[in-house]
């Protein structure tokens, strides 16, 4: 609200002061005489924007002079960095002309925080765009998705050969890992939350420790036991087990956190109705945390799909299609990308980038699904879920009332 003190109101105060002694505010000239304007705190003012533009133009021209005329500086990266530093200095000096020290620091820090975020976001954008750009020629050919590499040598053009074998390999390996990890991880997360035994603390510590396991060690473990000691050959199954060892602790920890967020009142309400523990978990805790659990699994899958190091050690490498996970080498998308770009042939490198792009898009899709499902906290239902729950309870009401009627009769 604007506080205005008009000239007219002051004499009346002084005249009353002659009769009744009251505190008189000393009149500070020039401060309160002008009507005050409310300060906007949220948005940037016009002044701020002008300050930014001024500092930006000044920085750009200074750096252009520096690079072109005065010093033998060169390089794109250097140009950006020097421009930024000059901008920061100019901005601080310009702001200090009108503002106090804390405000100047605040403005400079605002710029720094914003630019840190810009750097992070542009790094991600650069990764995505560059990968798609380098892989564009291979991605444009339909044979890239329909053929495997057994028909194409390294010197063949991009119109021949593709990565069907790697796509199939990734799908098979991920499915096997899911079959292994999901039941085990969810049961273990329930164990961590529902069991009152001291063992759950131990399990939780070990699981936490295992999230620190470098992925290559999971591969080395399977390589040394499954392949060298037990004598199985390198196969999709071996790779799936290695990936499962990586995914297991990730999913358990994420699911553990989600289950802990289920309100205790829901558990108690279920117990108070006389439900045994397993019914409470099955009908109350798990459905309540469903979206969070799905997110946990999908994030684990996203991690498992992109794992290269364990697959490198355990799956072997092949350029032809293999859908049997139990024998013969099988290749996954990240491994195919890794091997392809290490070739000196430009076409192979283009294929490698395209493979990486396909992998990235796959992860992006998984991630989007996880966001859509996991955006809600436990217990919040989507519109369709809410409708279903409503219908269910309506049926329950009908059933119980009819039963009451029967009993009454």
């Amino acid at each position: 609200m604007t506080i205005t003190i008009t000239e007219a109101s002051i004499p009346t105060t002084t005249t009353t002061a002659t009769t009744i002694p009251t505190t008189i505010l000393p009149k500070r000239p020039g401060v309160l005489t002008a009507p005050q304007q409310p300060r906007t705190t949220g948005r940037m003012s016009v002044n701020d924007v002008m300050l930014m533009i001024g500092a930006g133009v000044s920085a750009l021209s200074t750096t252009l002079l520096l690079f072109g005329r005065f010093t033998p500086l060169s390089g794109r990266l250097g140009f950006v960095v020097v421009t930024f530093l000059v901008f920061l200095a100019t901005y601080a000096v310009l702001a200090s002309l009108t503002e106090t020290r804390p405000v100047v620091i605040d403005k400079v820090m605002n710029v720094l925080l914003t630019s840190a975020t810009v750097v992070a976001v542009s790094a991600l954008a650069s990764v995505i765009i560059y990968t798609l750009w380098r892989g564009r020629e291979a991605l444009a050919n339909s044979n890239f998705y329909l053929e495997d590499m057994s028909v194409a040598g390294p010197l063949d053009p991009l119109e021949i050969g593709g990565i069907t074998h790697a796509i199939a390999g990734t799908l098979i390996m991920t499915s096997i890992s899911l079959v292994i990890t999901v039941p085990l991880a969810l049961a273990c997360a329930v164990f961590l939350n529902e069991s009152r035994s001291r063992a759950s603390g131990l399990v939780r510590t070990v699981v936490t420790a295992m999230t620190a396991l470098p992925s290559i060690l999971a591969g080395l473990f399977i390589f040394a036991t499954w392949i060298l000691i037990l004598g199985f050959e390198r196969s999709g199954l071996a790779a799936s087990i290695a990936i499962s060892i990586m995914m297991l602790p990730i999913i358990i920890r994420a699911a553990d956190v989600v289950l802990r967020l289920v309100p205790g009142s829901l558990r108690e309400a279920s117990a108070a109705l006389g439900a045994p523990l397993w019914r409470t978990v099955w009908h109350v805790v798990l459905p309540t945390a469903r979206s969070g659990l799905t997110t946990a699994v999908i994030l684990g899958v996203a991690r498992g799909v992109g794992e290269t190091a364990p697959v490198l050690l355990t799956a072997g490498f092949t350029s032809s299609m293999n859908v049997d996970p139990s024998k013969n080498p099988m290749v996954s998308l990240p491994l195919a990308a890794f091997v392809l770009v290490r070739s000196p042939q430009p076409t192979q490198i283009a294929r490698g980038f395209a493979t990486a792009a396909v992998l990235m898009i796959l992860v992006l899709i998984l991630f989007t699904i996880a966001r859509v499902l996991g955006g809600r906290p436990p217990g919040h239902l989507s519109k369709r879920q809410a409708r279903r729950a409503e219908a269910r309870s309506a049926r329950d009401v009908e059933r119980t009332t009819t039963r009451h009627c029967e009993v009454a009769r």
Partner: protein
Amino acid sequence: MMTSTIPAIVDVGSGTPQPRSLDARRGRGDRVFHGVTSLSGVVVLAIMGAVGLFLSIQATQALRSTGLSFLTTAEWQPDRGKFGIAAVLVGTVLIALVAVVIALPISLGAALFITEVAPTWLRSTLVAVVDLMAAVPSVVYGLWGLFLLQGQIIGLSHWLNGWFGWIPFFDVAGANPGSPLSSMTVYTASTFVAGMVVAMMVMPIQCVVMREVFSQVPIGEREGAFALGSTRWGMIRVVALPFGRGGIIGGTMLGLGRALGETIAVVLIISPRFDVNFHILEAGSNSVSSLIANRYSESSGFGLSALMAAGLALFAVTLVVNFTASWFVARSRSGASS
């Protein structure tokens, strides 16, 4: 005198009342449930234990033959009995440190921007972007680093070497930064470039932890600072940063743990060398995980157990780093609730 009498439903007089046992016996369903969940806990424990135990047992074979010189030898020739992790471990730690030093300001700035500065409509988008960054496979970052970033970074390496070459870290053997004819290839495949790429992977992990902590800053303290006339940065400095200190340290160390174990991006970028090399701008470096990735196939039984010993040493380091991280997070004010 009036007394209220309790109506006797059971025949009280016939026996002394017994306290009823409140221990509800588990039904069959619950027994099965308990058995299944406990079994899963045991299986997980067994798998994880097997990995740790197997690595240790295999590694002891190699460690017994070398003893303490395992830590000081830089060479890697297990078949001739001369091998150690001095070079690879130093390389691993240097790559991870470069990564964290580069990633820390960016992740801290981004976390503060997302929680404190960004307008509400932008916030959820940025959160999704950072989460997505954490989900991008490391091989994609590796390709990007090898083909795009390396070319850009060489100029920076050259510049650093030219101006700060007198600092031992930035010294490059065989480089002559003053000469315009000097070859740039002495700066490729270095610890610095690898660290830069790993920084891109570490940054989102750190950022997620820090953002989580900053979002828990008590609203009362935040508004209190504003009510006292603080600017936004003033509030961040006196309220958010002290509150989130544990999360900042913990998140940083979590990123460090990830950086230590990174394999594929490092394998793609560095050219392996086996001497203790502190010159981060110089071509050639090494790390434990890239050593394993490069050597596992050509190793004999003994060579493999030597690799396991190296892997175990790496695991020990990441374990210590991760547990220190979670200790910092749990001990801090912000972690007390979780």
